[in-house]
């Protein structure tokens, strides 16, 4: 095994751990809606929420990096350049995440000065991590880019997938620099913030996961490089072709000119197209292989990725993306429903697929199968879809009561929050959050033990796989 792949295992392990913290923080955040006085004066909603969304970003990022550190030496046929530096930075990264989390929980707030932004909390959604930690992320990403670009330079070997990856690393690094400013003008602040959130998370990440899924398909189903690269180019063309100006759907109401209503509405309405293409591709691939694979957990998580991305990102996003609907849906639990479904479908399922692919290689198993992964798969997806459905009901109620009828005042907000459909949705969301958490526990246990508990290379399994 390459040292890069050993580093990949560390990143993937850290990703699983942070996935757990994200889940716990999410369940706590959900509980505040049922009992607003929970931990009042000790740990408020915003800190739990910060822990929930920031660990989500970090675990997915670590999952991507782990996946790429795993696949890349096989792609290049050699150890990555600068791997020692990357190994050191992994520990620095983990220590920084831990320190930031402790500061969020214990210190929570600073005074209105630069010290607070540098050392406690930057107070911008998704980029709350203090500036010193954000610099750390930039350094980690820069070394990651050096590992990729340096190895490509030394080997002189650039495949279609690595070319896309290398180009994608540029905006990935540059756009993150937007994590530092504190622009007083909220319109300008949010204008650039969306370059970070939409173009980083919803564009460069889509390309990253596209590269990872391309390698996964080649290993999982033996799909030819020509086919996966063809689809990767199509995905890049369509995702960025629609997504770059699709950014405009975040510019409807922040003070920006009203031409964004047309541009953002049009291009974001087209954004589901590449996601639909991925579903067609996944179904086609699954059909040509008659649903046979040597790694069913990875295969099913990959299918969940394709369908989840289309439904969560595409369909749920389309529901609220036209300005005529968004005027009422914006800033409600309807958006939260879309956010949960999209992040899960677009990224989390893909990373989970890689977990199982790596486990199979790590344990040297010809076939990876079992029972527990099915329970985990079912509980995580049922929990997530249940949360999404419940949030949608709450979001509908909020959009009608608070936005459309009430006019978004404080009184209208509270009428919306106390509406019985909203409340029932929140209770249901919490229950399905617990189902999701149970699925996480099953996932961890399965990852630790699959292939160890029971013989997986059974005669029936071999015969079935050979059909």
């Amino acid at each position: 095994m390459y040292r890069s792949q050993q580093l990949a295992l560390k990143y993937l392990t850290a990703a699983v751990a942070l996935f757990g913290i994200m889940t716990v923080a999410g369940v706590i955040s959900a509980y505040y809606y049922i009992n607003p006085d929970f931990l009042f004066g000790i740990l408020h909603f915003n800190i739990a929420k910060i822990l929930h969304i920031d660990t989500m970003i970090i675990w997915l990022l670590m999952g991507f990096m782990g996946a790429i550190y795993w696949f890349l030496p096989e792609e290049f046929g050699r150890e990555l350049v600068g791997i020692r530096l990357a190994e050191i930075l992994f520990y620095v990264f983990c220590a920084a995440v831990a320190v930031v989390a402790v500061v969020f929980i214990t210190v929570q707030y600073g005074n209105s000065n630069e010290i607070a932004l540098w050392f406690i909390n930057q107070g911008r959604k998704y980029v709350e991590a203090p500036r010193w930690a954000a610099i750390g992320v930039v350094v980690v990403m820069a070394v990651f880019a050096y590992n990729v670009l340096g190895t490509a330079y030394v080997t002189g070997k650039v495949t279609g997938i690595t070319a896309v990856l290398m180009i994608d690393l540029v905006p990935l690094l540059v756009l993150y620099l937007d994590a530092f400013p504190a622009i007083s003008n909220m319109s300008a602040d949010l204008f650039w913030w969306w370059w970070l959130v939409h173009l980083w998370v919803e564009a460069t990440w889509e390309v990253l996961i596209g590269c990872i899924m391309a390698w996964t398909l080649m290993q999982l189903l033996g799909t030819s490089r020509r086919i996966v690269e063809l689809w990767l180019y199509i995905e890049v063309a369509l995702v960025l072709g629609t997504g770059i100006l699709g950014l405009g759907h975040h510019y409807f109401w922040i003070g920006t000119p009203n031409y964004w209503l047309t541009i953002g509405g049009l291009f974001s309405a087209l954004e589901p197209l590449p996601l639909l293409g991925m579903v067609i591709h996944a179904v086609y691939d699954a059909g040509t292989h008659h649903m046979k694979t040597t790694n069913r957990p990875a295969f099913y998580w990959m299918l969940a990725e394709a369908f989840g991305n289309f439904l969560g990102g595409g369909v749920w996003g389309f529901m609220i993306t036209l300005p005529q609907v968004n005027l009422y849906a914006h800033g409600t639990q309807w958006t939260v429903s879309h956010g949960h479904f999209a992040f899960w479908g677009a990224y989390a399922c893909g990373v989970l697929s890689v977990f199982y692919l790596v486990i199979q290689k790590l344990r040297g198993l010809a076939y990876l199968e079992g029972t527990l992964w099915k329970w985990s798969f079912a509980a995580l997806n049922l929990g997530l879809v249940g949360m999404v459905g419940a949030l949608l009901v709450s979001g509908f109620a909020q959009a009608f009561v608070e936005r459309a009828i009430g006019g978004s005042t404080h009184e209208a907000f509270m009428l919306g929050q106390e509406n019985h459909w909203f409340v029932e949705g929140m209770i249901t969301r919490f229950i399905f959050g617990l189902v999701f958490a149970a699925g996480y526990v099953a996932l961890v246990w399965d990852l630790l033990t699959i292939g160890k508990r029971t013989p997986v290379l059974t005669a029936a399994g071999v015969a079935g796989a050979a059909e």
Partner: protein
Amino acid sequence: MHLNDPAFWRAGAISTVAIMSVVLIMLTIDSLAAISPGGSNVPLYTVINQHIDYKFDEKRGNDVPVIGGPEPLFGKAVDAAAAEALIDKGKMVIQSRACIDCHTFFGNGAYYAPDLTKAWLDPAWETWQAITGAATREDAMVKFLMNPETNRISTRAMPNLGITQQEAEAVVAYLKWMAAVDTNGFPPNFGHMQSKQ
């Protein structure tokens, strides 16, 4: 060159990304001019010296901010430099207390607490004015921000975030300025329900 040739789609991807990026940059240049203070959509910070309202515009078909005559904040008009200092301070308070991780601004944030886009104009301040015994809306806002947990009027209370008098005044200035930003009619119908009662 055929549709199943990767080179075709590679060229398509490169050209599509290039064209869309150029268009985005051009629109960004135009938008930044519109949203800079004093631009077509965002008022100068000295707007805090004026009366601000939010009315339905028949021609545009949505609610728009209406800037009226003099109405100095805390009864004292400020010059451009002082107004900018207040807005800078207000934003720093908003970031240091992570307000956006409970509230929303222009609908962006965390959805647990009310949207603050037009908070300056919220009829609820009349209730808080009565509770706090404050003479004006802005004084009621300051008193609330400094002691929100003892001035709760709903089941969901805001915690005490250690906001000082000076910080609270800056936040009030910030909210007043933000209410004057043209947000293409978001939020719709703000305050109409109350005005009809």
